[in-house]
Each structure stands twice: as C-alpha cells, then as structure tokens.
C-alpha cells in the first residue's frame, strides 16, 4: 500500500457503511410501488422464435422429453429455473427477474392480472388452444382472469381425503371421516391455511374462502374438536400414507395419483372427494410483462398443448389437464382413484380459494394461527 493513500478512519468506515445501508435498503424497492408496464409490454404477441426460453415453474412439473422435443424442433434452449412456493415466485418476479413463461395457480394468476404483471395472450394465435377452450367452456371466462385474456389453463386438481383401506376399511364419503375414531391419532391435515379453513367451512356449509370473523370463529371451534385427533399438519400426504404415519389425510388429488406410481399394492389406498364439496384449484400458463422472449413463450405454450405432449405430462406429473382428447389418459392413470378426475361440473361448482381483501386475509391468517398453534 502506498503511504500517500490515507487509510480510512473508523468514522469514515462507519459513514461508508451507513451509505451502503441506504443503498441496500433502496435495493429492497420491491417493497415500494412498482413501475407500471406500458401498453406495448402488455399487448399480445405472435408465436415466433425470438430467443431461448426462460422457463420458471415448480421442479419436475413437465416431462423432460417434452423440453427436448421443443428444443430440437425450434432450435432454442430451455433455460430452467424453479420456485418452491407461489410466494417465492412472485417475490422473484417483483425483484425484477425476467422469465418468459410462468405457471401461477388461479389465486396468484388473479393477483398478477390485477397488478398488471402479465402480457395478454391471444388464443386465436395458438392453434392448439381450441382443445381447451372448445371443450372446457369454463375456462373461456374463469373467475381469476376474465376471458382468459392473460392465461391458458395448465392443470386442475382437487382436495379430498386419502386413506389406508387396509387399516381402517371404507369411509363414508364425508369430511366428517376425519373425525373417525378408527383413525384417531393418525390423521394429518395439509399444512395449508386455505385448505384447512376451507375444509372446516365446507363441513359447516359456509363459503370456502370466507373472511367473515363469525364464520372463522365457528370454523376454529369446529377444528378445535379435530385437533386432539390429529397427528400433525403436513403437506407430504403421500409419504405419510406410504410409511404408515397416517391412516387418513387431507390430500391433493395429484399427489394421490403420484402415490399410485409409488405403491406396491394400490388397492390398500383410497381417495375420496367428500360430498360436502371439494376445494378445486388450477394452474395456468402466463407470460410476464417483462418477458425477454414472449414469442418463444407463445410457441412453447402451443407446443405443450399438443395432445401427445399433454399425455406425456399427465403421465409424468399425475395431474389432469383440461385438454380435449386426453381425458382417457388420465382416467387410466388413476383407475383405482376415480375421484381424482376433475370434471366440468367440479369446475362449475366454483369451490376455488378466492383472494380476499386485506381485512379478510388478516382474519384468515389469525384463524389459521389459532388452528395451528392451538
């Protein structure tokens, strides 16, 4: 070090770190009102190769051979990144990361649409989209995205009860089964606020995503009677059933279908969609407003909708997809669990978890804390 350069004094260091602090805090500008995208960034685009595809989804949610086929056919690379929660996905998006195609759930799709974060998708430019919108008319105008103007449905799934036939025999087809003495101490609920409160609401005949405090009090008291019978809150439903920790668990249909692949003898398991109603959910394709290659994203969505690719993906992930002509593939896959099927009637029953306003969300959050912490 040359002696001419004076070393920073301790005070200078402190001052510098204060500036660093300010800079870092400004870096948290995801917490400040975001810039609004201009009209051009939201306008629909034509499917054409305009670069490699930057893909952002749950891990293992598309058959790898489908990616290979897409890369080969269009001469582009698929750059994959994964998220582990919807919250994580949106946080990365808000932080300014750029992706070409996203897979939000309906609830999050609605938030992104409302926030002006998604580019519009013109279905007439997707030759294979007819297989969805022509048959599954529900998706022509779903609640989360009027006119499906920004999204294309990907999968649909429901919530029911998975159980061990070999341990406790048959169930009655009601959410009340969770209270069954046969299963006491070996029952799990999903570690998911909406699913648990929603189950309570359906059992009481209330709206599935109610944010009304009186309703929530009733739900909390009902669930208090279930709590001593529970072994835990866990979303790992299929492992819990497979390794015997659970004889009964609240479960997502897709996980139960995936379990069929893992089980030596599927007949020891059962899955029911309770008669009081089953919460339903769907994921969709979406293109963020700042996608670097929206044209390739359009090509990718259309490629994914080709019947042979839909079939591959159904078999790979165990979730049904609302694409005409692929119903039998899924029905064959879940033959032991016919209630995994998601029909147009299931969709129209509308038991989706909806976004509430801030007060409703806070009330649900408080209720969930009480259910979980006792």
């Amino acid at each position: 070090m040359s002696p001419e350069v004076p070393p920073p004094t301790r005070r200078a260091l402190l001052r510098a770190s204060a500036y660093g602090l300010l800079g870092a805090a400004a870096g948290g500008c995801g917490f400040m009102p975001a810039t609004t995208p201009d009209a051009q960034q939201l306008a629909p685009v034509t499917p054409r190769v305009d670069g490699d595809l930057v893909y952002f989804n749950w891990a293992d949610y598309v058959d790898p051979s489908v990616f290979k086929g897409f890369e080969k056919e269009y001469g582009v690379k698929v750059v994959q990144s994964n998220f582990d929660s919807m919250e994580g996905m949106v946080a990365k998006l808000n932080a300014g990361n750029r992706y070409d195609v996203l897979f939000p759930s309906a609830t999050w799709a609605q938030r992104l649409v409302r926030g002006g974060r998604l580019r519009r998708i013109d279905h007439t430019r997707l030759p294979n989209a007819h297989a969805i919108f022509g048959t599954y008319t529900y998706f022509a105008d779903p609640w989360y995205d009027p006119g499906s103007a920004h999204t294309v449905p990907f999968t649909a799934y429901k919530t029911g009860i998975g159980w061990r036939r070999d341990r406790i025999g048959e169930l009655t087809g009601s959410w009340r089964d969770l209270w069954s003495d046969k299963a006491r101490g070996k029952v799990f609920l999903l570690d998911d606020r909406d699913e648990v409160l929603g189950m309570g609401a359906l059992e009481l005949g209330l709206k599935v995503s109610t944010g009304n405090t009186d309703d929530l009090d009733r739900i909390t008291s009902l669930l208090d009677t279930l709590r001593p019978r529970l072994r835990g809150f866990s979303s790992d439903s299929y492992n819990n059933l497979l390794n015997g920790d659970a004889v009964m668990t609240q479960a997502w249909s897709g996980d139960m279908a995936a379990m069929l692949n893992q089980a030596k003898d599927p007949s020891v398991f059962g899955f029911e969609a309770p008669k009081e109603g089953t919460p339903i959910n769907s994921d969709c394709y979406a293109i963020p407003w700042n996608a670097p290659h929206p044209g390739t994203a359009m090509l990718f969505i259309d490629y994914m909708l080709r019947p042979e690719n839909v079939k591959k993906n159904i078999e790979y992930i165990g979730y049904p997809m609302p694409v005409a002509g692929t119903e039998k593939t899924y029905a064959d896959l879940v033959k032991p669990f016919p209630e995994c099927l998601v029909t147009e009637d299931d969709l129209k029953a509308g038991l989706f978890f909806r976004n509430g306003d801030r007060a409703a969300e806070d009330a649900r959050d408080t209720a969930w804390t009480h259910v979980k912490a006792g």
Partner: protein
Amino acid sequence: MALLRPFARTRRRGADGDRVWTWLMLPGTVWMTGFLIASLVLVAVLAVGTTDDLGNPRFGFDLSGVRALADPAYTEVLARSLGYAVLTCAVCLLIAYPVAYTIALYGGRYKHGLIAAIVVPFFANYLVRMYGWSVVLSDDGPVLRALRAVGLADGRTKILNTGVGVVAGLVYGFVVFMIIPLYAALERLDVSLIEAGRDLYGGPVRTFFFVTLPATRQGAAAGLVLVFLPAMGDFVSAQLMGGPDQIMIGNLIQDKFFQGQNWPLGSALTMLLMLVLLIGMFGYLRRTRKDEAEARR
C-alpha cells in the same frame, strides 16, 4: 471482544500496523453491512409496514403487526420454543461433554480422525438429514418395525410427531456446535492440573467438578450459545418430527411470510424472537467479560 484484541495490540505498534488492520476490516464491514445489518434494518422497518392486495409488503407506518403480537398464541408458542431450546442445550451438554472429553484426553493420534468423523455428517444439509430421520422413525419405518419385532413396542408406539421427537431432532441437528468448542477447551486444558487435583487428594468426581469443569466453562458457555440460538429459531425439526402440539415460533414466522402473506406480522415476530435471543446473548457476553477480567488479574 476477542475480535478487538489484535487492534489494541497493533495500536501500540504504530500507525502502519493500524492502517493494515483498518483496511483489512473493510471487506468484513461491507459484507456485514450489506447482508446482515441492512437485511435486519429491512425486517425492522417492515414490522411496521403494510401489505398490499397483491400480497406484497410495502413500507409504511402501521402498528397492526406489532399489536397482533399480544395474541396469547404467540406467547405460548414462544415459551414452548424457549423450553425446547433450553432442553436441547441441556441434552447437548450432557452428550457432548463425555464425547469431547474422551476425544481430547484419550483420543491420542486418532483425535483428528474422530473429530472429523463427528463433523463430516454435518456437511450434508440439515433439512435432508432431518427428512431422512422422519422416514427412518416413521411408524412403518425400520426402527419401530425392529422394536415391534422384539416386543419393545406395540402398535400404538410412535416416535414421530411427539415433543421427544422434536427435541431429539434439535439435539441431533446442533450437538456438533457443542462438541467442537468443548473439545477446543478440553484440548487446551493442562492435564497436569487434573493430576495436581488428584495429588491434593481430590477424588475423580471432586477433581472433575472443581478442576476440569471450571477450566472448560468458557467452552461450555460458547457451546450453549451456539446451540441455543439456532435451536430457538428452528422450524425444520418441529415441521418434520413434531405434531400439532409441538409447533415452534420458527414455524409461525415461516407461515406469516408464506401462507399468511403477512410480512409485517412475520417481521414483528422475528424482532420479538431476536429480542429474546439478544437477552441470552448479553448474558453470555457479560459472563465472558467477567471471566476475561478474572483471567487478567
């Protein structure tokens, strides 16, 4: 404290040494400022922030997150976490002391190998190891099946989803943080001190409690802090090994940031947890300062 000591020494050596130390401090200062202090400031500021309808946190001034802390559910869970963390510390100390003692005093040329054998499994991710345990200890898993086969367990015996399971998970996860400082302290221990104790007619027990233990007190204190801090904030063990009555504060905080989308309340809970941890930390610092003062005398 220990970090500042080289400073004091170079001060006397003159301006040149001073410069080197000041410059060397720069990367650390930048790192800590950028990644630790700034993120802590963000958490503190968000504790009084708000959430918009998209679920995004926003800066602002709203005390509802802080006020929500008054809910007895949080106090109860915090107290439970404190209990588990203290219990974990105690069990870790009981397990780690004999292990460190044996290796340090009787390990001979295998010392380093033995320490490596203890440390290496901890290179694997904590979450992965805990997940592995949850499979091994499951009702139809190898452990319970073996116990049932020899008649030591019946169909109702369970290990998972119990308080014992959670504390066992925490102990397993953090015991190495206790072994290492204890080993370091015991390594440095002058064995002639023990011999002197024996020469002065102290039995093995008396010698241990009046010579060995006080001489390694600092190692134990460091180990207790290193185990207590992560155990108190842990959520993995309760998630994988616990049931509905074993939820820890870490689980609630995680819920606020994810399912609840209630970052302000999550941040407020984090600050509350940090406050509790800071109290423990101050206790430790006062203790070590006293010890140092005594040592200097």
